[in-house]
Each structure stands twice: as structure tokens, then as C-alpha cells.
């Protein structure tokens, strides 16, 4: 493997530089205004708390690169968290199997999304919106309040530390590294942008378009499953509403990181930078005592700014 190949996931483009610059700026401002901001404790907290967003944003990136969009993520996170809660309460001794089953269930829902997109020929936005609505309904019929419980050791997934580094954060980094290499180095991963750029061209050049789509959506489901496990580990219970904000939140870091809605182009590293930018910014705004309400305004403005900057660049290119 040549050095150039290894560096490919890290390839630098203006978008990543801009996002990194913004991230640096937020950190400098934070360090200047609050002495507790630039501490190891705070850094690990930010990383730990961004894990759930990281998992779902990574899955969303893969789907978007493949030309789709997944609006079922939030509902899936809620549904799976409730599932873990109930299953964990009934069979605490089978917890490992339950966790594996959750990941499989997430992948299965993703595969169903892909199948509906392929077989019905319906726009992914509509399909995943439909799945989300159905999952929400089912989850809320099962329970309207947080319910169920899991054995205490599961908490380690959220609060545990390895050499002072949060477990959830490590797992998130691991997923990003794997996905980054897969997407840029391996034929099966490099099909994603090809299929997203032009399904027709991909089909004509003999790429397995359907299989690629199924894999992308299934991995998005896996991301949702990991986020669900993280939430259950953090709160110790299944919550039917926990995932709701995640659907739209998962899209923000993706577009901030320079992945283009519509498919064909995108970067896992960009998404990771996007996740960190949003997480540190929220952290900073919290330290500065800015209300949640105004944080929403900031988030909206970030989307607008980021997207219109990227688009301008794409047009020049």
C-alpha cells in the first residue's frame, strides 16, 4: 500500500480546512472565555457526548454519498432503545446477545428501506419518512414513557474510560477510521460514490447498484443501533422519544463536512469534523450561558452558511 493510498481518507480540501479553522476558532474562543473549557475533562466530555451524533452522522454520510437520504434514523434509535430496555429487563443474562441483536435489527430496518427504494422506485426521502412514521407509531404503542432497564455493566459503554479516554468516543473513532478506509480504499466502498453520482452509469459499468444501496442503508441502520445502545447505556432505560432530534441532527454535520446532498461526493473525515464543530460549539454556548433557543438559531445559521459556501465552491470548480 503506497503512502498516497493510505493518506487518501485524509485528503485535504478547502471544505475541511474551513471546518477545521472554525473548530479551532471555537476552541480558542472557548479557552479565552472560560478556564474550564480547555481542560482534559471537558474535552473527553465533549467527545463522549458527541458519540451518538457521530454514529448516526456516519451512517447518514454513507447513505447520502450513495445518493439517498435516511430520515428514519431518529425513529429507529427510539424503537431500538425501547427494544433494548424491554429485552434487557426480561433477560438481563442475555445482554450481549441483545446488543448484537440490536445491531442486526438496525441493519435489517436499513435493508428494508433500501429494498423499498429499489423495488417500489420511490424517492428515498419518502420511503424513509414512511419507515420513520411507522416505527414511531409502533414504538409509541408499546410505551409512551421511558421503560425497561439494563444490567449495570452496560453503563460502561457510555461512561467507561480506557486509559482516560471515553469508550464510546473510541468506538466512534474506530467506526470513522474503518468507514474512511472502506470508502476510499476498497472496491466495495468506492462503489458508494459511483452509485450516488449516477446510478445509471454505475449500472452500465457493471457495478452491483442494488447491493451497494442495501449495504449503505444497512450500515446507516447499524449507526442508529449503536446510538441506541449508547443512549440506553447512558440512561439505563429505553426511551421512545430519545431519537427524535437525531434525524435532522444527523444531517447537519454531514452537510457541514462537505458531503453533498444528492450523492456522489462526500467525506467521512468531513463529517467527523462537522460532528466536533457542532459538539464543541454547543459546549461553548452552554459555557457562555446562551439559551437552547438561541442555540437552535445558531444551528440553523450554520447549516445555511456551510451549505451556501460549499455550493459556491462547487460552482467555481
Amino acid at each position, binding site marked *: 500500500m503506497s503512502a498516497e493510498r493510505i493518506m487518501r481518507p485524509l485528503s485535504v480540501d478547502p471544505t475541511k480546512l474551513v471546518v477545521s479553522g472554525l473548530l479551532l476558532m471555537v476552541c480558542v474562543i472557548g479557552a479565552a472565555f472560560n478556564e474550564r473549557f480547555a481542560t482534559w475533562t471537558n474535552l473527553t466530555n465533549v467527545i463522549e457526548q458527541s458519540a451518538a451524533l457521530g454514529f448516526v452522522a456516519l451512517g447518514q454520510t454513507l447513505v447520502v454519498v450513495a*445518493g439517498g*437520504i435516511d430520515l428514519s434514523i431518529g425513529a429507529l434509535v427510539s424503537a431500538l432503545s425501547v427494544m433494548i430496555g424491554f429485552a434487557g429487563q426480561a433477560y438481563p443474562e442475555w445482554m450481549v446477545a441483545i446488543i448484537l441483536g440490536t445491531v442486526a435489527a438496525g441493519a435489517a430496518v436499513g435493508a428494508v428501506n433500501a429494498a*423499498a427504494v429499489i423495488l*417500489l*422506485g*420511490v*424517492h*428515498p*426521502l*419518502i*420511503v424513509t*419518512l*414512511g*419507515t*420513520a*412514521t*411507522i*416505527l*414511531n*407509531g*409502533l414504538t*409509541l*404503542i408499546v410505551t409512551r414513557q421511558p421503560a425497561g432497564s439494563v444490567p449495570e455493566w452496560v453503563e460502561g459503554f457510555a461512561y467507561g474510560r480506557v486509559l482516560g479516554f471515553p469508550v464510546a468516543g473510541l468506538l466512534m473513532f474506530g467506526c470513522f477510521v474503518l468507514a474512511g478506509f472502506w470508502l476510499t480504499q476498497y472496491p466495495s466502498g468506492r462503489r458508494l460514490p459511483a452509485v450516488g453520482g*449516477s*446510478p*445509471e452509469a454505475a449500472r452500465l459499468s457493471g457495478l452491483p447498484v442494488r447491493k451497494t444501496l442495501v449495504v449503505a442503508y444497512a450500515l446507516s441502520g447499524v449507526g442508529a443501533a449503536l446510538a441506541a445502545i449508547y443512549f440506553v447505556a447512558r440512561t439505563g432505560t429505553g426511551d421512545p422519544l430519545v431519537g427524535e432530534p437525531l434525524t*435532522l441532527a444527523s*444531517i447537519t454535520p454531514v*452537510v457541514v463536512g462537505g458531503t453533498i*446532498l*444528492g450523492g456522489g461526493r462526500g467525506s467521512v473525515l468531513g463529517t467527523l469534523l462537522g460532528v466536533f464543530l457542532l459538539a464543541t460549539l454547543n459546549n461553548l454556548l452552554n459555557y457562555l450561558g446562551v*439559551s*437552547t*433557543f*438561541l*442555540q*437552535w*438559531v*445558531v*444551528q*440553523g*445559521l450554520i*447549516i*445555511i452558511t456551510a*451549505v*451556501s459556501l460549499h*455550493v*459556491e465552491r*462547487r*460552482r467555481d470548480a
Partner: protein
Amino acid sequence: MSGNAIFVPASKAPEIRANRPTEVLILLGFLAMLVGIAAVLSPAFLSASNLRDILVQAAPLCLVAMGQAFVIMVRGLDLSVGSLMATVAVLATAFDASSNLMIPVIFAACLAFAAVVGLASGLLVTERNVSPFLATLAMMIVLQGTRFAYTQGSPSGRLPDGFRVLGTGQFIGIPINVIVVVVAAVFLGLLLHRSAVGRRIVTVGGSVRAARLVGIRHKRVILLAYVISSLMSGLGGLFLVGYVGVVDNWVGRGFELDSIVAAIIGGVALSGGVGTVAGALLGALVLVVIFNIVVILGLPVEFQLIIKGFVIVFAAAIHIRRTSAR
């Protein structure tokens, strides 16, 4: 390359338009079937008072869905409608007026505000090439944040009593908000199907490039669609407040999804250029009747979500079959 075409490869855009009158007739048949089912399940459903209640209840969604149809027609999507409805409602209470004479002023201010919001979304789409999904998503979040920051969580402020009359009152036996829906439907229907502007909307939705080549100023057409959608959301928000009787920060929550579902049931294609105002209107009615059937059956309200989910996917699938089979 156009930012609006995002999500939909040009090659997938339906080449031939579905036959509009047939489409509307099928929808009418479907609606009649649903009403029939409801009547069998509960004879009280067909009583004049219940039917009137359903129409009154459906009115705000009808207004928003017709506006949403315009944006979808030009290959867009308006996710900000629900947030805009609530923001307009909060804006209406900001006048803290008790005199009914203020109602026209409140309406004018709210609709002007809505128009500005639509213009902003539209400009992001046309001038900055932002995908409609993101532009209106960002707008939704910004409006939500601004609204909460202004109300500090719970709106105070009064509304004139006349609002309640607009939302629930009658004029010569017909509910006022139903009259508003009919007037709006006729106006928007004429605009879309019988005017030069409407033909431009259809052309731009079919192919931005083709529209540009025949000299249509496509950006203006797209802007107009977003402004129409926002105006209809503003109107829908004001009438919804009149119907519900209270303003809170979440008035209109879920309307973004419901209005899109209604438009899709009504045969408006996400790929642009295909759709009717009557379809969107009937789609909204279908949705509301389905919700009512769930209530009649005594099922948990969450069943509405499950049914809605299936209906949205299959309605889209059926319309795709119908348009591509020709």
C-alpha cells in the same frame, strides 16, 4: 447543473404527465370509499354535523398542502411550514390586541412576515443553490429558535375574540374556514392550471434547463412557489389558532410531514412538474378521514402514524407506476 434537481436524477423524471382529470377522479373515488368505510363502521360519521366538523378540522391542512404542492411542483420541498405556522401564531399574539378591528392588521403583518420567510428560503435555493431540503430545514430551525427565544418558552399575549369566530364560526351555514379553503383552492387552481404563471411553474418543474432555454426566468418562478407555500402556511397557522383557540410554541407541529403526505397522495410528484391543486386538496381530506377512521375504530392514536407511513410510501409507488406506465 441545478441545485433543485438534487435527489432526482434527470433521467428518472416522468416524461409524460399523468392524465389530470382521471387522477383527480380516482382520488375522489378513493375518498368516497374511505367515507363509505367510515360510515359502515359508525353511522354517525355521515351526519351533517360530523362531516362539517371534519371539513373544519381539515381546513388548515388543506391550505398548507396546496401551498406545499407548489413548492414540490418546482422540485422543491418546504420543511418550514409547521414552524412557520407556529411563528405566525406567536407573532399574532405579539400585538396583544383585544379589538376585532385589529384582525386585518394582524393578518397583514403575519402574511407579510410569512412572505418574507418564503422569499428567504426561495433565495437560498435560487441564488445560493442550496438544496430545498436544507434551505427549508435551516429555516425551520431558525424560526423555531427565534420563536422560543422571543416567548421564553411560553407565549403570553392575547388574540382578539374574532379569531375564534374565524376558526370555528359559520357564514350562511358554511364554516368560515371552509369558505376560505374553497376560495384559496379556486384561486390557486386557476393560477396553476389556467394562467401563464402556472404553465411556467409546470415547465420549470419539468426541466429547469428547458424552461431557461425557452426564456422563462426560472428563478422568479421558483421564488414565487416558495412565497405561495409560506403564505398558505401563514394563513393555515392563523386559522389553526382560531380553531384550536390557544397559541403555543408547537402549533402546526407535524404539518410539514402531513402536508407533504397530502400532496403526494394527491399525485404531486417529487420529481417536479406534475401535480394538481385539487389533488393536494383531496390528499389532505383523505388523510384527515383516515385519521378519523382510526379514532372511530377506537385504536390508539399512534395507529394514525403507522397508517400514515404505509399510505405515504404506497401512494408514491402507485403514482410512479401510473406516470411511468404511459
